[in-house]
C-alpha cells in the first residue's frame, strides 16, 4: 500500500459528500423497514471524524483506524455504530506490528468484516450491511492476490458493492430491526447495505482519481 493516512481527510470528505447527497433516499429506506435514523446516526459519526481529520492524518494506519473505530463507536450509536466501530477497530488490530501493503490491507478489511459478523451474529443473506461488506472483502482479496491494476480493482469493488446492495432487495431480513417486519421487508433495499455501498464507492472513486494513471 503506497498511500499514507494523509489521504484520510479526503476520503472522509468523500464519504460525507455521498451520504449527504443520498440522505433523503437512505432515510426513506430506513423509514420503510427500520426506524429512520440511520443517516442521522452516520452523519453524527462522520462529522466527528471531520472534526478529527487533521489529527487522524498525522498518525499511522494502526492509530488512524483505531481512532476512526473508537470515534464511530462513541458517536454513531444504534446497530450501525457498534458494527462500523468494530470494523475499524478490528482492522487496526489486524495491522498492528506489520508493514502495511495491499495484501495486508485486504486481509485487515477481511478481518474487520469477520469481526462485524461475530459482533452482529450475522452472515451474508440476512439483508444487512454484510451483504455489501462480505463480497467487498472478497473482491479486495481477489484483486490483491491477482495483483490487478489499482483502477481495475477499484472499479471491481464498486461493481461488487452495487450488486451487493441490490441483492438485499429480495432478501427477508433476519437480523437487526428490520427482522421484526418479516415478510414486509421483501422488495425494500437495506439501509445499512446502501450506505456501506455508498461509502465504499465514494472511497474507491476518491482513490482512483488520486492514483497515478496505471
Amino acid at each position, binding site marked *: 500500500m503506497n498511500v499514507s493516512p494523509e489521504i484520510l481527510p479526503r476520503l472522509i470528505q468523500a464519504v460525507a459528500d455521498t451520504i449527504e447527497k443520498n440522505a433523503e433516499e437512505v*432515510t426513506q429506506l430506513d*423509514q420503510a*423497514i*427500520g*426506524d*429512520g*435514523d440511520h443517516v*442521522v*446516526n452516520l452523519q*453524527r459519526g462522520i462529522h466527528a471524524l471531520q472534526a478529527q481529520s487533521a489529527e487522524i492524518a498525522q498518525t499511522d494506519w494502526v492509530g488512524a483506524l483505531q481512532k476512526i473505530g473508537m470515534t464511530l*463507536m*462513541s*458517536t*454513531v*450509536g*444504534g*446497530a*450501525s*455504530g*457498534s*458494527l462500523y*466501530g*468494530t470494523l475499524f477497530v478490528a482492522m487496526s488490530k489486524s495491522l498492528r506490528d506489520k508493514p502495511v501493503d495491499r495484501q495486508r490491507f485486504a486481509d485487515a478489511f477481511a478481518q474487520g468484516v469477520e469481526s462485524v459478523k461475530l*459482533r*452482529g*451474529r450475522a452472515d451474508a443473506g*440476512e439483508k444487512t450491511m454484510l451483504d455489501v461488506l462480505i463480497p467487498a472483502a472478497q473482491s479486495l482479496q481477489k484483486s490483491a492476490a491477482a495483483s490487478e491494476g489499482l483502477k481495475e480493482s477499484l472499479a471491481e469493488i464498486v461493481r461488487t458493492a452495487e450488486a451487493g446492495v441490490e441483492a438485499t432487495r429480495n432478501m427477508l431480513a*433476519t*437480523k*437487526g*430491526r428490520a*427482522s*421484526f*417486519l*418479516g415478510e*414486509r421487508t421483501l422488495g425494500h433495499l437495506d439501509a445499512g447495505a446502501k450506505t456501506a455501498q455508498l461509502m465504499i464507492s465514494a472511497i474507491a472513486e476518491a482513490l482512483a482519481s488520486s492514483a497515478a494513471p496505471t
Partner: protein
Amino acid sequence: MKKFINVPDSLLEDSLKGFAKAHADIVELNLQPHFIKRLQPAKPGKVVLISGGGSGHEPLHSGFVGLGMLDAVCPGQIFTSPTPDQMLAAAQAVDQGAGVLFIVKNYAGDVMNFEIAAEMFEAPNATVLVNDDVSLPKTHSIGRRGVAGTLIVEKMVGAAAEAGADLAACKALGDRVNEATASIGVALTSCTVPALGKPTFELGENEMEMGVGIHGERGRETVPLQSASEIVEQLAHAIDEELNPQPGQSVLLHVNGFGGTPLIELHLLYQLAAQHWEKRGLKIARSLVGNFTTSLDMAGASLTLTMLDEELIRLWDAPVNTAALRWGC
C-alpha cells in the same frame, strides 16, 4: 412537524438538562458522555443497576433512576441505542464493588453496544436481556423485542438489589421476571422523529398497526381500526397464548400508552383488560396505567401482564423514589 423544539441537534441535551434540573433532588446528569445517575449513590456493597437505550421513550429509562430502582441510565439519541463509552463511564461512576447489572432491551443496537461496554468493563457484571414482546414468535431470528415490561424488571430487580441481593441473584431474578412477563402493543398513528420532521409511516384513517415495537416502526401488520373491546381481546389473547395463566393466578396488569394517547382511553383499556382476565379467574393484584414506555408522540398502547408470586408482589411494593414511579417513601 408540530413540536416544541429549537433545533433537532440540541433537543436531547437540553431536554436531559431540564429533566435533571426538574428532578435535582433525585438525579444528576453527566454530560460527556451522557448518563444520568442517582444523586445519592448506592451504599457500598450494593449491586448497581444500569439501563439505557434510545431516547424518545420517556419516562423510560431516566424516570426510573433513584432509590429502589436504577442506579444509572445511558440515554442514546432518539430511537438510537447509546454507545459503549456511556455505559462504561456510567458503570465506573456508580459501581459499589458488588457488581453491575446491565438491563438491556433486546434490540440489535442495544445488545451490541452494551456487549462491547461489558467486555470493556473490568469488574464483575451481568446482563439481563428483556424480550417481553409477544407480537413476535418466540422463535424469531433475533428473539423478541424488549418493550413495556422492561420497567417491571427494573422495579423488581431494583428492590432486590436495594435489599442486598448479590449479582447472581439479581441476574436470576431479572430473567425470572422477564420470563413471567408478556406485552403486546398496537399503534393508531406513527410518530415523528424530530431529526426527520415527518411521520415514520402513514396510516389510513381506518387503519392501525398491530404488534408494534416502541421505535415508531410499523408492526407485524396493518389491520382495520377496531373497537377498544376487540383490540383488547386480541392483545390479551396473544398474552394468554404465551403465559397461559391459570385461574387463581395473581398478576400485575400494566396498560402503557405510547405518548399520544390520553389517560381516559388508557383507563378504558385497563377496564376492558381487567374484565378479560377477571373473567378467566385471575386476580389482578397490582396495576399500573399511564404513559411509561413511549414512542414520542405516537398514539397507541400496549398491555403487559406479569405473573406474580408473593416475592414479586413484595418487590413491586417495596419503596421506590424516582421521577416517574414513587411510593413508600
